[in-house]
């Protein structure tokens, strides 16, 4: 895979806010990069810098080896899909889809326009909607059409800014899968911005975690999920979120409170750290110290338990081979090899 997009040392200040601080990122020519972060992390600004809608204060943007820092958005040939898609309500779906192909400077024959619109309609399974006015579409259909309008002209780069955020849960799940399938069929590099950890994990080739304008970690979903380099990164992924404990090194173990020896360590006696334990890496039984179940939630294939353990509230994902009740005592056991530790910094 070749590098298609390259950002080096991007700084951007908006008003008084330093929206981006020295961002380095690369995107392969057939890659889907998810930029994950909370509201205000700088995700949308980063996309706008890629699209050419914002000029960086410092740093460089290269596309296919060319410095595009001074290029206008149209020259960059980038498609940008927003959270709130704006279709022309009175136009038919077909006319909306054809719109980008009729832009000034594009001299496409009507037969070619029709061929491309039909192609994209088939890809997104919206053929039967082509002659309807957009205003009659459901939310999910509108989102499909809007995505179709972005890909119909086969841009060099596809930028998506939280495209599923405003949809209800069921539809979000369906469209997430469709986007992932579509993307395989297209072969266009994509940058996908979201604050939803499940979308990031399931769709990304690589995830870049952004916080306060800085890239905290970049890597494959499995790496970010299993080996996050900070508690902040760890908490961006996973539902329920990772459990965090303060621990002290004692007799070759990281110990939480007085008796919670959760993982072996070679660090010297008395050192302190933060431990991260994913809810699915705790078994409800077989451990040495007791916990009390507070809330039991049915998550379909599993239970989600909220328990008091070692002086903190802890989530456990338990399988459905038995049942649990509030107030019940259990004996959690941690899969020690899956525990992540971060040394306490000064």
């Amino acid at each position, binding site marked *: 895979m070749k590098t298609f997009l390259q950002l080096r040392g991007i700084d951007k200040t908006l008003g008084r806010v330093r929206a981006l601080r020295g961002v380095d990122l690369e995107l392969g020519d057939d890659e889907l990069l998810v930029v994950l972060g909370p509201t205000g992390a700088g995700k949308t600004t980063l996309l706008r810098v890629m699209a050419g809608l914002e000029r960086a204060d410092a740093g460089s943007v290269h596309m296919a080896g060319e410095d595009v820092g001074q290029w206008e958005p149209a020259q960059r040939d980038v498609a940008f899909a927003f959270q709130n898609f704006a279709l022309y309500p009175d136009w038919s779906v077909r006319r909306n889809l054809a719109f980008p192909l009729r832009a000034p400077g594009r001299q496409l024959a009507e037969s070619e326009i029709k061929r491309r619109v039909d192609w994209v309609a088939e890809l997104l399974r919206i053929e039967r909607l082509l002659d309807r006015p957009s205003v009659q579409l459901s939310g999910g259909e509108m989102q499909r059409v809007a995505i179709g309008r972005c890909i119909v002209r086969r841009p060099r780069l596809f930028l998506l800014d939280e495209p599923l955020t405003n949809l209800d849960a*069921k539809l979000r799940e369906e469209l997430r899968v469709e986007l992932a399938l579509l993307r395989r069929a297209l072969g266009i590099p994509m940058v996908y911005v979201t*604050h939803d950890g499940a979308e990031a994990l399931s769709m990304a080739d690589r995830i870049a975690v952004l916080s306060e304008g800085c890239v905290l970690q970049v890597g494959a979903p499995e790496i970010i999920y299993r080996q996050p380099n900070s508690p902040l990164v760890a908490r961006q992924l*996973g539902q329920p979120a990772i459990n965090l404990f303060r621990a002290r090194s004692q007799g070759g173990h990281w110990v939480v409170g007085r008796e919670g020896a959760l993982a072996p360590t070679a660090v010297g006696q008395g050192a302190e750290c933060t431990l991260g334990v*994913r809810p699915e890496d705790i078994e409800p039984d077989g451990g040495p110290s007791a916990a009390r179940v507070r809330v039991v*939630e049915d*998550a379909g294939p599993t239970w989600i338990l909220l328990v008091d353990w070692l002086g903190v509230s802890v989530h456990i994902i338990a399988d459905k081979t038995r049942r649990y009740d509030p107030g019940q005592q259990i004996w959690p056991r941690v899969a020690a090899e899956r525990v992540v530790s971060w040394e306490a910094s000064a």
Partner: protein
Amino acid sequence: MSFLQLDGLAKTYADGTQAVKGIDLVCEEGEFAVLLGPSGCGKTTTLRMVAGLEVPSAGRIVLGGVDIGPWPPRRRDVGFVFQFYALYPHFTVRENLAFPLENMAVAAPECRRRIEEIAARLRVGDLLERYPRELSGGDQQRVALARAMVRRPQLYLMDEPLGTLDADLRLVMRELIREQQLNDGATTLYVTHDQEEAMSLADRIVVMEAGTIRQHGTAAEVYARPASLFVAHFIGSPGMNFAEGQVRDGAFHAGDFVWPLSVQCPTGPVTLGIRPEFVRMADGGALRGEVVLDEYMGACRYVHVQTPCGRWVLRTDAGQRAVLGQVAALQLDPEQVRLFDGQSGERIG
């Protein structure tokens, strides 16, 4: 003993729209019941009728043995929580919480005690002297909940109270609501379109569609034995896998996919359904297809397989990476196969 009882409750608007088409529902005292369904199914209208904010076109609402139909909202002693916080912006948190109690003429010391107790429970004890605009969305929603709960009404009505919160906060609030409800034992009627929220909170889920109740039962019942294709699809994320086919000679047939049936099932069109966690790849599996998508979810993995019966999803171990393009044979857990009538969509096995 039934605490809240709806008999033939219906709402038809002036323009002829039948929002609720005569539903019957019984809630036990202390029960947490969730009305679940897509938008337009009548769940919110039902809740508003119980609150007294809509006048039913027909039917009765019985609360604690009394027909409260003719009662104005104030007299019904219900605590209502909306999706939007609706706090008084010029009142502090403490004043917002005191407001419902002052209306009930609760004595000042008792009022103070109750406010502090509920504020501590919902973790807004440090925010009592602040104004709503100084609070985050999550804290505002906690205060809105506290305000509904401080009166200790006999019934809570909640209309998508977690609607606008982000995923982490939703989970926290969900647990808070559940814990608080278990503590004070108040009967709760809760409306949502989010099946995950319904599953996790409910003692009983009431699935609604097009103004009628399609099924009610515990989360486990509704999940394992959905009454119809609609419920099967709506509950669960990802939803159930389906294959449309025919029953003949004691087996289900959909092209090359043949599934012998252990139960009696009449000959004719049938849809077979099974949840993603009860399908696995195994040599000699009954249904064959090609792996088209492998979704890593952290705690598990969803593998999508394109079969002649449509795209099926398997829930597998996070560590079991699937290979795109790989041909897969799917094995079904016989205990977990469900059958639905091909015409009506009702479950028949």
